[in-house]
């Protein structure tokens, strides 16, 4: 094991450094999954879905329920049930459109609507599942792969792999299909899209539904990584929007990069300087990025 120097009285060994990188990337993968839906709804569609973490939590509880009743893997459950979240997203957008967007009242009232959805979901989860912590049992949660001195905890590796596959898949979908390009176009110029014979409301509805489907999957990652209780979703509001803004509004690659940057910043700060500094460093990076590149890392 080679030593690189000292920080805070601690020897920086190669293994410590590389493990910090691995931990940061794995954490970033999870952050990407919880944020990519916001990147679609907020970044591309201009829908400030502040209730996104509530749908993540809903995904967690559904995964928990199926896991506890039938023993199925929570991530597999979330992928299988993602069409249900897609339909839920379609219905939610339809209500939002008819009640607010169509009337030009989406700015403040729309925001209040999503806040309401957040709290209603929370209360519903409390009524159905109670307030105690819930968790899932998986075959890999307590297993760590070791490569020399490098640790790969499967509790984080499995969500990371599925998350990266999901984000890359979304990026390919948005850039290589007609519908994907229509989604990219709808945020920029809905009128032009309409002139080309595409219904922007329908495009937004489907894209919003896609964002909610990603929330369901991210919920399964969350409950694999840590126990959940009904109000834990609020903790992710700031994070999801920070990742989205850091990466660049509406950029899927940007979301992935932003998530990795925040994950690595948190991991390095926790390892070498003290975990208390992690939020300050992460949000300091966000401020610096916005100062020098206001549109975010991959923003246009």
């Amino acid at each position, binding site marked *: 094991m080679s030593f690189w120097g000292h920080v805070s009285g601690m020897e920086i060994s190669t293994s410590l450094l590389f493990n910090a990188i691995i931990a940061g990337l794995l954490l970033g993968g999870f952050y990407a999954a919880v944020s990519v839906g916001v990147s679609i709804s907020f970044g591309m569609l201009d829908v400030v879905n502040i209730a996104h973490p509530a749908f993540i939590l809903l995904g967690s509880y559904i995964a928990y329920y199926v896991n506890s009743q039938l023993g199925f893997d929570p991530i597999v459950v979330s992928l299988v049930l993602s069409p249900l979240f897609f339909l839920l997203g379609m219905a939610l957008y339809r209500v939002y459109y008819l009640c607010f967007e169509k009337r030009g009242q989406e700015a403040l009232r729309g925001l209040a609507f999503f806040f309401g959805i957040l709290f209603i979901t929370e209360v519903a989860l409390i009524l159905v599942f109670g307030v105690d912590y819930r968790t899932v049992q998986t075959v890999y949660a307590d297993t760590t792969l070791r490569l020399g001195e490098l640790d790969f905890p499967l509790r984080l590796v499995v969500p990371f792999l599925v998350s990266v596959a999901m984000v890359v898949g979304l990026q390919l979908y948005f850039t290589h299909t007609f519908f994907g390009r229509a989604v990219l176009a709808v945020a920029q110029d809905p009128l032009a899209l309409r002139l080309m014979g595409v219904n922007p409301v329908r495009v937004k509805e489907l894209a919003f539904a896609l964002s909610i489907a990603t929330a369901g999957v991210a919920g399964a990652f969350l409950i694999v*990584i840590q126990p959940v209780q009904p109000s834990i979703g609020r903790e992710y509001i700031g994070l999801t929007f920070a990742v989205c803004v850091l990466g660049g509004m509406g950029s899927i690659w940007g979301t992935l990069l932003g998530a990795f940057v925040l994950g690595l910043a948190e*991991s390095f700060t926790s390892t070498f300087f003290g975990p*208390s500094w992690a939020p300050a460093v992460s949000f300091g990076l966000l401020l610096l990025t916005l100062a020098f590149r206001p549109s975010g890392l991959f923003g246009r």
Partner: protein
Amino acid sequence: MKLKVILARLLGVALLAAAGTALAQQPPLKIGFGMSLTGPLAGNGKAALISMEIWRDDVNAKGGILGRRVEFVYYDDQTSPATVPSIYTKLLDVDKVDLVVSGYGTNVIAPAMPIAMQRKLTFMGLFGLNVNSKFKYDRYFQIMPAGPEPAIGWSQGFFDAAMGLNPKPTTIALVGADVEYSAMALEGARAHAKRVGLKVVYDKTYPEKTVDFSPILRAIQATSPDLIFAAPYPPDSAGIVRSANEVGLKARMFGGGLVGPQFAALKTQLGPLLNGMVNYEFYVPELNRQFPSLQLFLAKYQGRAAKEGVDPLGFYLPPYAYAMMQVLEQAIAKVGSLDQEKLAATIHKNEFETFVGKIRFGQNGEWAASRVLMVQYHGIVGNDVDQFRQPGKATVLSPKEFRTGDVKTPFHENRK
């Protein structure tokens, strides 16, 4: 004979009706509090509420207090200290409650203290660690058995066990969350470390929203401490224990002040990952002979907890929530009124018989003697909750009168 029985029954019904009428004529005795019914500590808050409601129903079945039916007025503090001052102001000024007690935990008790002090109220605290060290309020009483020096008493058993090792440990790492509880627990651990001459090689806290604890545990591991004292709140406790397993944490002793392994949700979730850890508890089934009255309470509590979906074991907070109300009830009975000054004086002077045993309070409102159990978990297999109902999963290391065995070290070799 039959006529006598019928007459006796009629008399009984008449007496009950008279008592009921008397209760109905008196205004209810309102007890107000905030409680964590949502947020990170809601599981415990709800369990405490159930326990207090059982006490209320028991008391009302006996005719109430001072001939008045007991009613609760409570609000959800969302496990947020920021909500507490407004809750207690509303309870006192709008709801006009007769008495207040605290919600659950150090973080929500501390912000209620200035209001209790301003109104000169007798204030019972439910599991606040060393809250009165700064306030020094003579009408504050705390039901957690942390002893007269709570910060010290909290981790006394951990350090006693550690310093009994051969060879003696020389270094320690301290870690906790950026919350009031951790600050108090770590303060006590620092004092112990200084007293016994341990070198502190890591002493850091982490923000509440931390998701992955492996970087923190690797940083601790890099300092190669003999002992690791951790004082996190749930769900961080689960994250720390899981990450300790993932990074292959090596230390002679690990644990001390983790909040979470005491109740079923985390016991079952972590299961065998708890093996080898040393941590505090207030009751383990190994001591069921020493706590006979506690069994009576658990019989009442567990049936209701199962229906309400909260901690099905109830070893940790629920008995003490009930005991807190028993102390208040007995003090009011002795004083014969709700005079706050007399209540405080009475609680200071007397010993109280409760479900958790006899309680006497010291000058600062804490238990006169510490009764924090320090245990080492072992033999936990799988995640079944029922295994924790029976003896055999923990060795009690301290206090001496409850000791069932010695600590086994190092931690990493006793994990299975």
